[in-house]
């Protein structure tokens, strides 16, 4: 009897070690699937699923163990930061996730700083673009962008490319303020003149008045920063309706002109110049792999955007960290593994700043043209490996 019992115990031990060799690593993804920011959740998730289709749903750890990478998706509902924070708590405590990701909005990303420190859980920010976020906790890593990276790049480019006077019309929220500040700063530093600056309500769609003011100020270009979707579409419509385009005034923008949004614009948008860290139609092999996979899996809903590339690169970094440290390392170990890593991202070369854990990447200036009957962004300039200018202006006090 005793023999039999010990035999069963031995079997049990074998069974346990057997299951231990396939460990699970859970990542909680917080993003909006409903409400005004509903596209973000789906875009993140589609890219993650496409990434796992190509690179597998498991990673081999340092000791050769198989680590299953599982994602737990939660809808932040385009609501306030409280909701994102509550979801993060639930994911850490109940779902026992070892890492958090997603976050299309800066307030959402900022709301989980304390949780990350208490639970030692790394947070991979896949979009939220307020420069200061990564300073909030040593557990943040960002794979998207900072708004000053955009604003500074296009301001400098404009001044160096024959644009002397600019009227800026930006949305009255934190990213709009950052874009305005860094555009003004770099444009003026390169010899340009700001002839007027307006801030518009966050969800404004009636731009007639601002266009009239800009028209009267006779600038060479109008610089805009508006949320993607209806505000920016209305903006371009008003720009052309009011005759600014006909008057030869150029339009400079940011992420409003992502490929995802382009079909919703009329042909008035042709000629618009915008700044971005990801040109969807770039011909790098890494980009082709990502785009083909997304189209294969999701059909016409597989159009890539900055959310896709942010999520894709986040997964690539997470897989690297897991290969180095396995499924149950300390949170900071994963962060250290990501620091200083360079990747051939679908957007081009990127690096995680070893000091700031923020992204260093190429910034592209593009012009909208009609290519094969479709509106498309065409790269006209590349500014290589840009570090977040805000962090250069605001060094860490030691």
């Amino acid at each position, binding site marked *: 009897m005793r023999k039999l019992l010990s035999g069963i115990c031995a079997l049990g031990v074998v069974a346990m070690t057997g299951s231990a060799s396939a460990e699970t690593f859970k990542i909680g993804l917080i993003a909006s699937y409903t*409400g*005004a920011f*509903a*596209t973000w959740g789906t875009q993140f998730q589609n890219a993650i699923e496409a990434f796992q289709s190509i690179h597998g749903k498991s990673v081999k750890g340092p000791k050769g163990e198989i680590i299953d990478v599982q994602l737990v998706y939660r809808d932040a509902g385009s609501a306030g930061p409280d909701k994102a924070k509550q979801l993060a708590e639930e994911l850490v405590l109940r779902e026992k996730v070892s890492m958090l990701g997603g976050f299309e909005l800066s307030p959402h990303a900022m709301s989980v700083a304390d949780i990350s420190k208490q639970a030692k859980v790394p947070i991979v920010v896949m979009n939220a673009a307020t420069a200061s976020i990564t300073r909030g906790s040593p557990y943040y890593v960002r794979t998207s962008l900072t708004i000053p990276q955009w604003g500074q790049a296009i301001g400098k480019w404009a001044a160096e490319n024959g644009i002397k006077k600019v009227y800026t019309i930006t949305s*009255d929220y934190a990213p709009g303020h950052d874009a305005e500040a860094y555009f003004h700063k770099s444009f003026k530093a390169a010899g340009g003149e700001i002839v007027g600056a*307006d*801030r*518009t*309500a966050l*969800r404004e*769609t*009636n731009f*007639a*008045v*601002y266009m*009239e*003011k800009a028209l009267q100020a006779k600038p060479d270009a109008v610089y805009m920063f508006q949320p993607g*979707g*209806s505000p920016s*579409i*209305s903006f371009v*419509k*008003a720009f*052309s*309706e*009011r*005759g600014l385009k*006909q008057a030869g005034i150029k339009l400079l923008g940011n992420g409003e002109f992502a490929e*995802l*949004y382009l079909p*919703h614009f*009329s042909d*008035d948008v042709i000629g618009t110049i915008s700044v971005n860290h990801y040109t969807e139609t770039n011909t790098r092999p890494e980009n082709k792999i990502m785009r083909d996979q997304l189209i294969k899996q999701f059909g016409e809903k597989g159009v890539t955007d900055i959310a896709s590339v942010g999520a894709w690169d986040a997964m690539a970094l997470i897989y690297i960290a897991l290969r180095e440290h396995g499924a149950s390392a300390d949170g900071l170990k994963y962060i250290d593994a990501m620091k200083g890593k360079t990747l051939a991202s679908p957007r081009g070369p990127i690096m995680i700043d070893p000091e700031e854990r923020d992204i260093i990447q190429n910034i592209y200036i593009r012009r909208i043209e009609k290519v094969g009957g479709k509106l498309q962004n065409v790269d006209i300039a590349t500014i290589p490996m840009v570090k977040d200018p805000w962090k250069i202006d605001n060094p860490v006090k030691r």
Partner: protein
Amino acid sequence: MLSFALTVLLDGISYGMVLFIISVGLTVTMGLMRVINLAHGSFAMIGGYVAGYLTQHGVDFFLALLLATVAAGLLGALCEVTVIRPLYRKGELAQVLLTIGIVFVVTALITEIFGAFPYRVEFPVYLTQPLDIGFRTYPAYRLFLILVGGIIALILWLLIEGSLYGAKLRAAVDNPRMARAVGMNVSLLFTATFIVGTALAGLGGAIGAGILSLEPSYALKYVVLFLVVVIVGGEGSFKGSFVAAMALGIIDTTGKYFVAAAAPYLLYAAVFALLLWRPQGILPPKSLA
């Protein structure tokens, strides 16, 4: 300076016209039927999406406007008979809850069918260009809005002030119990008026898409504006809603011109001031005056 003032005025009036066309139906619903219909914006949104779908598929713009108006009116009829009618005299809470529920249902349906992105109405090319109006060039689209809004206001004015239907409507707004007592079929009048109101909202949603852009959150996003027009004008007052829509359009536009930073608050400050001055609205119907 004169041309500048005229430009601001035109910008304000064209915006006001959109608000008027969409809100005039709501003012009757709230004034006549005493139903707080928060779903009113949904009909404008549906009209806009119908016109958008048709124009994107090659249907003539004006035919699309007509069909959008009819579609919104038909859905309005369906909605009045099935949902709104049981709500009369049910109290405001029930009305608010049910109609806001309709907003959510419509928003979800639109997202499901058309996606979460903004939706485009294809205007004829000549409406997307600036037009030379003598002292300057001005967007043809905005002139079109003023023209259509003006025609609708004129027709409604003739209808309400000059026809038997109008006389009945005014009587029912001023004193619904008396109207019933003298043998008027108030239910039929309600349904007919609700249909006209929602049809106009549909038209407004379609032609106003260049200013109030179409997206699934439309119904919720703009309903505050429509309610403001109704309340400031005086519930049930057709003339009041016209005056209020113009006033708000012009105040909003002028505000953005001169104090852009305060513009989002200025509109509400103006509403606050107007309501302090006339709590029942600018031109309330007789029963409330």
